[in-house]
Structure formats: structure tokens, C-alpha cells
């Protein structure tokens, strides 16, 4: 079995609605893949299956050769709505992740490590605060810090910047790339988004899902080098061509669905 995340003929139905159908995707370790699609295309469902939060309906889903049968510390998740526990301080939210990932580490060391994760993500001011006292951008940074603290080799990110303003969104995109590029070995990341530009800017590869039911309608390499420089990409012909291609694919899928309806 090849390492990484592998989906073979994966399907999922909710009641009588087929949400995902015959998904065949192989994501090698260390790749940052953007999972793109319109609302309702099953992106989040696919991520939940990969996280083990929901059982696969049909087909086979494996991580490093082992079937995914439930949540595991091997697969961290960053949710769109942060999901930090509001009754725990930001540091405690991260400490609880470290405690589960490395139970032998003493509490004082865990707290120091949690503080370091926050400092690394520019969140010194959040130390000693509670999630309710932070802005949306800061909460999402803390959520990323917690996912990193888990030390999972696979990071599943469900529209993590979807609720942020454009400035914070761009900052966190850059922060994510910086953290990912500096890590050795690099984590495998599946980044769900419905923003084409975000998908291209972050990903090595774009997997585009069509709707009703969710299925892969395009699997494209992103022909942009790393590290990525936001300003220079604005004039990149490759970026514009890829964006046009993705947009055309999505429009075509929508038209086909309308015709079928």
C-alpha cells in the first residue's frame, strides 16, 4: 500500500441523498492539496470521512495503508468555527492536545510548550486569555496552534479562513504556508475551500468536486513554485490560466446539473 491518504471508490449517503460518489484520490505524504467545490458538493463530508468522524458508506479510505475507522491523533482537524473549548483558556486548549499526544510530558512542560506554539503563531497576547476574548483571526490561529500541537502528520482543514476578513485571511494563508514549508518532514494537508484563488495560492494540487452527488470533476497540478510570493503571483500567467480552467470546470458542472434537472 502506498503511503499517504488514499480513497478508492469512496461513497457516502445521508438518508436517501447520495452526498459523495465513487471518489478515487491518492494524496502522497507531504503534499498540500486544495479541495475545491461549490457549496453542497460534499467537501466537508469528504473531510469528515478522512478524519474518521463519519464512517465511509462504500469503498475504501486508508491513511498510510491502514483503513480509517475512527478519529485518531494521526489526523488533526482545523474546523471553520474554531471549535476551541470556550471554558478553557487558550493555553489550556493547546495543553489538552499536547497531553493527549504526549501523555508522559509533565504538565508544567506541556504548558510551556503550549505557550511556545502560541508565540510561534504570533499569539503572545492570547496567553492567559479565553477564546471569547479573542478576535476571529486570533481564534483561528489558536486552533491551528492546537492542531500543530497534536503533531499529526495529516492535517485536515475545513474552510479554516472562511469566516475571516480579507486581510486576516491573507495573513493566515501566509502563516500556514510558512509553518508548512519550514516543517521537516512536511505535513500532508487537505485544505477545503470554495475560494479558487485561495485554493491555487496554497495548494500543490487542486481537486475539484462537482455537485449532486459530490464527485471529482478535475484533479490539477498547480504549476507554481515555492515559496510563493503573493504579489508576483498577481501577474502570473499560469495562475490566471488555472483559475480560468477551474472556473470553467465548475460552470460546466453547474450547467450539466441544470440540464439534468
Amino acid at each position: 500500500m502506498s503511503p499517504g491518504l488514499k480513497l478508492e471508490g469512496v461513497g457516502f449517503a445521508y438518508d436517501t441523498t447520495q452526498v459523495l460518489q465513487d471518489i478515487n484520490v491518492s494524496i502522497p505524504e507531504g503534499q498540500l492539496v486544495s479541495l475545491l467545490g461549490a457549496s453542497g458538493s460534499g467537501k466537508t463530508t469528504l473531510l469528515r470521512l478522512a478524519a474518521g468522524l463519519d464512517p465511509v458508506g462504500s469503498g475504501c479510505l486508508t491513511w498510510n495503508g491502514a483503513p480509517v475507522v475512527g478519529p485518531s491523533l494521526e489526523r488533526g482537524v482545523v474546523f471553520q468555527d474554531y471549535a476551541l473549548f470556550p471554558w478553557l483558556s487558550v493555553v489550556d486548549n493547546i495543553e489538552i492536545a499536547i497531553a493527549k499526544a504526549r501523555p508522559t510530558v509533565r504538565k508544567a512542560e506541556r504548558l510551556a510548550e503550549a505557550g511556545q506554539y502560541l508565540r510561534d503563531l504570533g499569539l503572545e497576547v492570547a496567553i492567559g486569555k479565553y477564546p471569547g476574548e479573542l478576535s476571529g483571526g486570533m481564534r483561528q490561529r489558536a486552533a491551528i496552534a492546537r492542531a500543530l500541537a497534536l503533531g499529526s502528520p495529516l492535517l485536515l482543514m475545513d474552510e479554516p479562513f472562511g469566516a475571516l476578513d480579507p486581510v486576516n485571511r491573507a495573513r493566515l494563508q501566509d502563516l500556514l504556508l510558512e509553518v508548512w514549508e519550514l516543517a521537516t518532514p512536511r505535513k500532508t494537508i487537505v485544505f477545503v475551500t470554495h475560494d479558487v484563488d485561495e485554493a491555487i495560492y496554497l495548494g500543490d494540487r487542486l481537486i475539484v468536486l462537482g455537485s449532486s452527488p459530490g464527485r471529482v470533476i478535475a484533479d490539477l497540478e498547480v504549476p507554481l513554485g515555492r515559496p510563493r510570493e503573493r504579489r508576483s503571483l498577481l501577474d502570473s500567467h499560469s495562475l490566471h490560466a488555472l483559475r480560468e480552467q477551474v472556473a470553467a470546470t465548475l460552470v460546466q458542472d453547474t450547467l450539466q446539473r441544470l440540464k439534468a434537472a
Partner: protein
Amino acid sequence: MSDYIALVNLQIPGTSLPAASAEPGLAPGWLGRALESVAVWIALLLSWWVASVYLPLGDNPLLPSPLITARALWESLPELWAGTLSSLTILLPGFALATLLGIVSGLTVGTSARLQRIFLPFAKVAGPVPPTVYIPYAIAILPTFKLSAIFVVFIGAFWPIFQNAVAGAHALEQRYRDNARILGLTRLEYQRRVVFPAALPHIFTGMAVGLAFSFILLTVAELFGANAGLGRFVQYYADFADYPKMVAGILYTGLVTFLAMTLLDSVRRRSLFWLK
């Protein structure tokens, strides 16, 4: 389940007052606000005084004047204090036990579909039974009056706390459940670090209802056979037609109840500081 979760949604005093600025008209100054908050008390006191002085109520009126009542209250303070301590030895164990068992069992049942299938039909029947009907039976079956009264207070406080703990566990948002699963929390960790704190707003609502019930049941139980306590104080002086002391006892019991509810509200505010 949803019908079961439709709970007694009593608010703890002071938690849901509408904002003053939401009212039309000019916002009052600090003096105006202070006067507003005591206006009802002043009006009631004046009405009481006027009624007791000017209405023909006889030589030993059921409604003694505020001054006579105040004197009776002052003279009875040592006896009322002893009665308070006696009442608390019933109320505190009953309420504490109801809180502990109500929370533990409510959260356990609220997070298990199987336990819900087993216990909720019973809870639906047993919960609404007025706890006062247990009083004669408890006095007959338990060896001492105190144990009987503790049992009745426990029963009265238990159901609202249990029901609200179940509702709190149910109300836990999916994202927190997912988060706990991703972190790989054990069942005990999940209950202690996720379900319990998330259910606390519901639990405090249940505790407020339970505490109010506890005071009602305590004083009712004391009417049956206690030789001390707040309920017994009121009943004793009513039997002797000593209405100033009886009214003083009613006012004093109201004050003790208010203080207990205020204390609980203060603990609630401190515990739920993270709710924003």
C-alpha cells in the same frame, strides 16, 4: 426526546433583565435608577403601614404594623437564627446530594442513547410528581424527622437538576463533540472537561429551580413535625395567634431564601465567566 428536553426554563434572578437603553424615552440618571429599584418596596411598605393603621383589623390583627413586626423580628432574632441553623442542617445535605447525583446521573444519561431509552420514560413519570406528596410517607417510613425532611428536599431538588443536566448534555454542540473525538479524549475526560462545563448553564438553571423547591419543601416539611426551623417558627406562633412574630418569621424566611438564591447566582456568574 425533544419534548422531554422542554424544561422548566426558570431564570435565576437578575440574568435576563432587558437593557435599560432598549426602553423608549429618556434614560434615568443614577438617582432615578436607584429610586426605581426601591420604589416597589417603598410602595409596599407604605401600603402595609396604611392598611395596618387605618383599617379596622381588631385588637390582634393578622396584619400587624411594620413597626410592631420589626420589634417582633428583633426580639426573635436569636430564635430565628437557631431555626435557620436547624433548617440548614436539613436543606444543605438534601440539596447537596441532589446536586451531586443530579449532575452525575443527568450527564451520564444525557450522553448515552441506551441509558436514555432505559431511564427517561421513568423520569417522565416520576419527575412531575409533586414532592410534597412524599412528606407523610417519608415521615412514616424513615426513623427520624430530619432524615425524612432531607429525603423530601432531595427528591424536590433532584429532578430539576437531573432534567437540566440531561438537557445540557444534549445541547452540546456538534463541533465540541467532534473536537473531543479528534483529541481522543477518554469517556471520563470527555464528561469532565467537555460535557460538564458545556452543560453548566443548564445545570445552574436546574439548581436555581431545585433550590427554590428545597426551601418550599423544607418549610412545608417542618410544619409536619419539626421541633425547630423556619417553617416550624411560623407555624408555632400562628398556633398561638402571635401574628407579629408569625409575619416576622415569614419576612425572615423570605430574606434567607433571597440570600441563598443570590449566593447561587453569584457562583453561577463566576463559573460561567466564559459565556460571551
